[in-house]
């Protein structure tokens, strides 16, 4: 047997925008085991409910993670609204859905860029981010923020999108669709890219199920589970099918995310078509008393919000189970037996978001 060496990976590492530390136990070029150690971004956000009241806390919820920021705000307010029996106006629900899909677009493009960077295709990385800026422009125009939108609140949304802008969004989406097609063509068909992705890190359907993977990770292994099917937000009124693939390798995980880009574009189109007229928020009176469990589909997978109120301004408990947390066991499984050179790609294919995992 060859000798074992331990190679530390992270917390500061060129392919990782975020700090996570792995001890990779190696036998020659093969990884035998990966031991994660975390806590570099832990802040203690859940405890902050004791200091900020439930209306204020949405600002904190949005900052659990800067990439799916809007959806954290959305999940939090959905849970509070359910506890307090608040009827959110239809228009607000549609607007939330539109913004949620825009954040999925920007998140997936960001991920594609980082993946390209991980296998050393700098040009592709730049191109993904160039297209992403166009989405951020729309977001900035409609909400005022680029990454932290701040447009969701308990009882509705803070801003309305006027009809002229909605029409323009429709036109911009057509442009975007074309550019995304060009990019996806490279990811799906380019020889060098395929060499790095096809057959790397295969997660079988059984493993995905047993290890509790979520989101694109699970769908790439052939399990058609998408929380949007629960029909929260306006999704019950829009048409879509969960996207799945069957091989469960890095290539399929990439393919699922690329297809989801087109899916999001179609969802935004439908929502823009069907959006009803009306107010965008209702007045919130009283304090939450009771508990609720909200499940949402974020770009990285299913997020769970558990909230318990006690009839005062301050909540008893906010608990978030984030998608990356659910995907880490699957990642550790993938890392066992992989080549050292594939480690960055495998870490990236789960689309890790450390700051929401550690909060």
């Amino acid at each position, binding site marked *: 047997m060859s000798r074992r060496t331990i190679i530390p990976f992270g917390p500061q590492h060129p392919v990782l*925008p975020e700090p996570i530390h792995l001890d990779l136990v190696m036998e020659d070029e093969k990884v035998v085991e990966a031991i994660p150690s975390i806590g*570099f*971004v832990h802040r203690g956000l859940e*405890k902050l409910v004791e200091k900020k009241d439930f209306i204020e806390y949405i*600002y904190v919820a949005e*900052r659990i993670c800067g990439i799916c*920021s809007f959806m954290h705000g959305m999940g939090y307010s959905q849970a509070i609204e359910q506890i307090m029996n608040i009827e959110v106006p239809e228009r607000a629900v549609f607007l939330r859905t539109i913004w949620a899909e825009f954040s999925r677009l920007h998140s997936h493009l960001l991920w594609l860029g980082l993946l390209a960077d991980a296998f050393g295709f700098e040009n592709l990385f730049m191109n993904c981010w160039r297209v992403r800026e166009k989405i951020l422009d729309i977001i900035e125009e409609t909400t005022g923020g680029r990454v932290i939108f701040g447009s969701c609140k308990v009882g509705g949304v803070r801003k309305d999108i006027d009809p002229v802008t909605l029409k323009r969004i429709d036109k911009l989406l057509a442009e975007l669709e074309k550019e995304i097609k060009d990019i996806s063509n490279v990811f799906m068909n380019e020889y060098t890219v395929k060499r790095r992705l096809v057959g790397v890190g295969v997660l079988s359907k059984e493993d995905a199920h047993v290890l509790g993977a979520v989101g694109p990770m699970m769908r790439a292994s052939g399990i058609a589970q998408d929380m949007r099917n629960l029909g929260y937000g306006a999704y019950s009124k829009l048409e879509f099918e969960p996207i799945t693939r069957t091989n469960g390798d890095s290539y399929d995980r990439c393919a699922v995310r690329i297809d989801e880009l087109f899916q999001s574009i179609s969802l935004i189109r439908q929502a823009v078509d069907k959006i009803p007229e009306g107010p965008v928020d209702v007045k919130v009176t009283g304090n939450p008393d009771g508990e609720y469990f909200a499940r949402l589909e974020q770009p990285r997978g299913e997020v769970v919000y558990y909230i318990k109120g006690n009839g005062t301004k301050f909540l008893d408990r906010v608990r978030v189970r984030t998608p990356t947390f659910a995907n880490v066991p699957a990642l550790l499984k993938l890392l066992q037996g992989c080549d050292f050179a594939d480690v960055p790609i495998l870490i990236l294919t789960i689309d890790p978001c450390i700051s929401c995992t550690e909060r």
Partner: protein
Amino acid sequence: MSSLSKSPWILHYDASSCNGCDIEVLACLTPMYDVERFGIINTGNPKHADIFVVTGSVNEQNIDVIKNLYNQMPDPKVVVAVGICAATGGIFRECYNVMGGIDQVLPVDVYVPGCAARPESIIDGIVKATTILEEKYKKMKESKSLVKKGRV
């Protein structure tokens, strides 16, 4: 010296930020904002870096990592704190695991405001940092030549 201030290399570390500022720092490198036109390159190696860009606040776990990275950088070096978190702790200030801004551990030269900090202001901050870098270099050189001449 102008070579230093005209093409500073930056090292970015995410202390305990929410990612908002991190992706904005990354966005600065991409075609829309493109800091490479100022000669700025993002490096992953502290030993190559002149400017240390930190996002997020200090906590128990990462305090040593931050110090470690800073100590590995060659002199002269400049620290840029990006975002309110890095300046004071921001919205997370009252959290039990947040010790405060980056200035708790390192001497910060430039603070970039915003939550999330906008790419424009990040670029502005880094360009300011290059001036400070140049000053620091001059001072370093002067003191060295004084040592040589035996006046210190």
